[in-house]
């Protein structure tokens, strides 16, 4: 992995925790997605004297290194591209404090069109179809990522906190291949088997030996947390802290206007791929011999073993399939929201919410729970600001544990 990532780690020069000011300049058009704005000069002054400047790159990012102190950060509006202006024409600069070692994000809201004009604000009712679409897409991504988490728990009892890192690994590997020149679809076709292989390595190299040694479930839970930190910071080490996008589909605005919402090609691809894969998984779990063996092992391990099922092989199969699905989920998540080193950890908490809601250990539970969580997160932005939308999903987690801890599809056995 180090070798794979090594050749493009040099691009991430300005890392997230380097002290100074940074930001990403994006403009919001009247219709469609935000896009980055290149070539804007940002000037940093202290006590009236200019101490630094930067020009936004192709992805709209800029960074000015600075020591602790009081500064004024300003954008040079004369460097704006045609048609771009500040959302609030007065807000060209900002007075900010920087504490030692701090890395501060500075936002300048840009729009395409005349400054000061009210952007095309939709009423709550008009926003609902678009939010439902976003919610379903996000739900499909969570579902694909969390099937493995649920089945691994069902068969081995392991609450795998390192599952999110499989998601990150898939997305980051595809990103590396993509930056090396491969089309994202091709990069994905290579990254998914690689993630599956990492999953198999996890099982064979770590969890199986630990089970053989008779490690307790709690010890394994703590070990999975250690593994999660280790893997996450290895990715940060080699990839850097920036959120990056794939070369294809990144800022796509081509799409179709449907009943009250707009769907772009990227989203259509995500829906097609995830629906196909999820249907294939459902078929495999239901109809194939291996799928039946999986359900048998998840149901009652000892009984399955005594009726001649090779339990260790079934568990390995689940790891391979589950990791591959998580990797694919990561790639689709990256397509939708960009790739970053801690995307998997962010998704992990939502995956836990989804899996618990649907029924931990079941095969279909994650799907149902994920759709509910995806919808709930997006629809909650009608009431709360989008920066705290994930809170809703985590609140669901608390409520479901209070009223129906086995989840919607789980059986009502005692889990206390």
């Amino acid at each position: 992995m180090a070798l794979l990532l090594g050749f493009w780690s040099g691009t991430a020069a300005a890392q997230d925790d380097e002290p100074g000011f940074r930001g990403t300049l994006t403009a919001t058009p009247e219709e469609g997605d935000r896009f980055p704005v290149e070539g804007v000069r940002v000037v940093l002054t202290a006590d009236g004297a200019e101490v630094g400047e930067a020009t936004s790159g192709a992805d709209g990012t800029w960074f000015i290194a600075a020591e602790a102190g009081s500064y004024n950060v300003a954008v040079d509006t004369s460097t704006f591209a045609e048609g771009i202006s500040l959302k609030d024409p007065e807000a060209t600069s900002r007075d900010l404090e920087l504490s030692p070692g701090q890395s501060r994000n500075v936002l300048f809201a840009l729009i395409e069109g005349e400054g000061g004009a009210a952007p095309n604000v939709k009423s709550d009712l008009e926003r609902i179809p678009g939010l439902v679409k976003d919610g379903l897409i996000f739900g499909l991504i969570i579902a694909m990522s969390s099937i493995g988490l649920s089945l691994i728990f069902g068969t081995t009892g392991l609450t795998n906190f390192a599952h999110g890192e499989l998601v990150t690994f898939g997305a980051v590997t595809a990103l590396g291949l993509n930056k090396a020149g491969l089309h994202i679809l091709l990069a994905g076709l290579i990254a998914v088997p690689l993630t599956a292989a990492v999953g198999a390595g996890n099982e064979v190299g770590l969890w199986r030996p630990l089970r053989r040694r008779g490690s307790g479930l709690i010890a394994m839970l703590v070990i999975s947390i250690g593994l999660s930190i280790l893997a996450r910071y290895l990715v940060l080490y080699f990839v850097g802290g920036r959120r990056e996008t794939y070369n294809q589909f990144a800022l796509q605005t081509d799409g179709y206007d449907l009943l009250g919402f707009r769907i772009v090609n990227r989203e259509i691809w995500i829906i097609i791929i995830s629906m196909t894969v999820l249907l294939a998984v459902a078929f495999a779990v239901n109809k194939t011999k291996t799928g039946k063996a999986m359900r048998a092992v998840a149901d009652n391990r000892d009984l399955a073993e005594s009726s001649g099922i090779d339990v260790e092989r079934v568990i390995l199969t689940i790891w391979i399939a589950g990791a591959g699905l998580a990797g694919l989920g990561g790639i689709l998540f990256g397509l939708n929201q960009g790739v970053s080193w801690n995307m998997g950890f962010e998704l992990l908490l939502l995956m836990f919410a989804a899996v618990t809601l649907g029924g931990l250990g079941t095969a279909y539970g994650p799907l149902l729970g994920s759709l509910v969580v995806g919808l709930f997160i997006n629809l909650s932005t009608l009431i709360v600001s989008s920066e705290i939308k994930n809170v809703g999903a985590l609140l669901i987690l608390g409520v479901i544990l209070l009223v129906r801890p086995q989840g919607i599809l789980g059986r009502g056995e005692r889990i206390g």
Partner: protein
Amino acid sequence: MDWGSILAETVNKFFGVQAAYFALAAIGLNIHFGYTGLLNFGHAGFMAIGAYGLAISLQNGVPLLLAVLIGLLAATAFALLLGAPTLRLRADYLAIVTIAAAEIARILFRATEIAGFNTREYTGGSTGINGFADPFKDLNPYTGSVDLWFVSFSRNDAWTVTVGWALVLLSVLFVHLAMRSPWGRVLKAVREDEDAARALGKNAYSIKMQSLVLGGLFGALGGMIFVLGQSSVQPTPQDLGAPKTFFIWVAVILGGTGKLWGPVIGSMIFSALLQFTDLTLRGFQEEGIIPTWFMDGVQVGQVRFILMGLGLMLLMAFRPQGIFGDKRELALDVR
């Protein structure tokens, strides 16, 4: 490379602000995990709530002691909220809920407005709150920096360190008395065999809840010392997010779970170890032993997290009882 100064700074860290607030938080986590077997993976949430409770109160002119009390009350409420849905369930649900709740707390502290209510006025949003610690600094009896023969602290640090370690000693004494009491024995009984404790008429749910609250209070105290020491509270993951929780976990396991002095010694060793690796790596880098294409200044900071993850895995796999722990006192197979 100046090994002398590296050694001196490492020794300083044994007794520094970080070791002191780690120790306070670790004493709390030891009550949770070591004595009761609760899997609290949201300890940074308790620290954040204590820290913000204190900082917001001080910012609005509340006297210091009352502000501390407010922080502790907030942490109590947080513990009750976490415990209610999870403590009747299998142990790993608490792990999931606490890690999620700590993240919720951090997101809410970082938010600018919550459902139309402008919270940035109080929490400072992503900037956090700075310079609220004056009421604490004003009490500083030291007039200059403090130099003992093996450690030296700036005037501010010396005061924070004094208060921090005084609290640690009081906490250790408190835990010592509490765990010798009948209450402490019930706590361990619940850890060893919850069903047996219940069969003897003990209310395991209530006992676990009490433990969650009590440990959370020490977590909140740790968070307070932390933010008073740097007189700034910020909702970043490094400061009050999941990585901080994991640091405390390593400190507890390193020292030995379920041991009175374990978390304190673990915190001292771990703080010093972090500083030592950091300085050594930076030293190697300046000498050119580690080329910068392989590791630059920012990456050195990330190595400590990589080592922490590896350390947690290895400790748990090969020496789960830590340095001073007793394997029989380990609650690893509670379900």
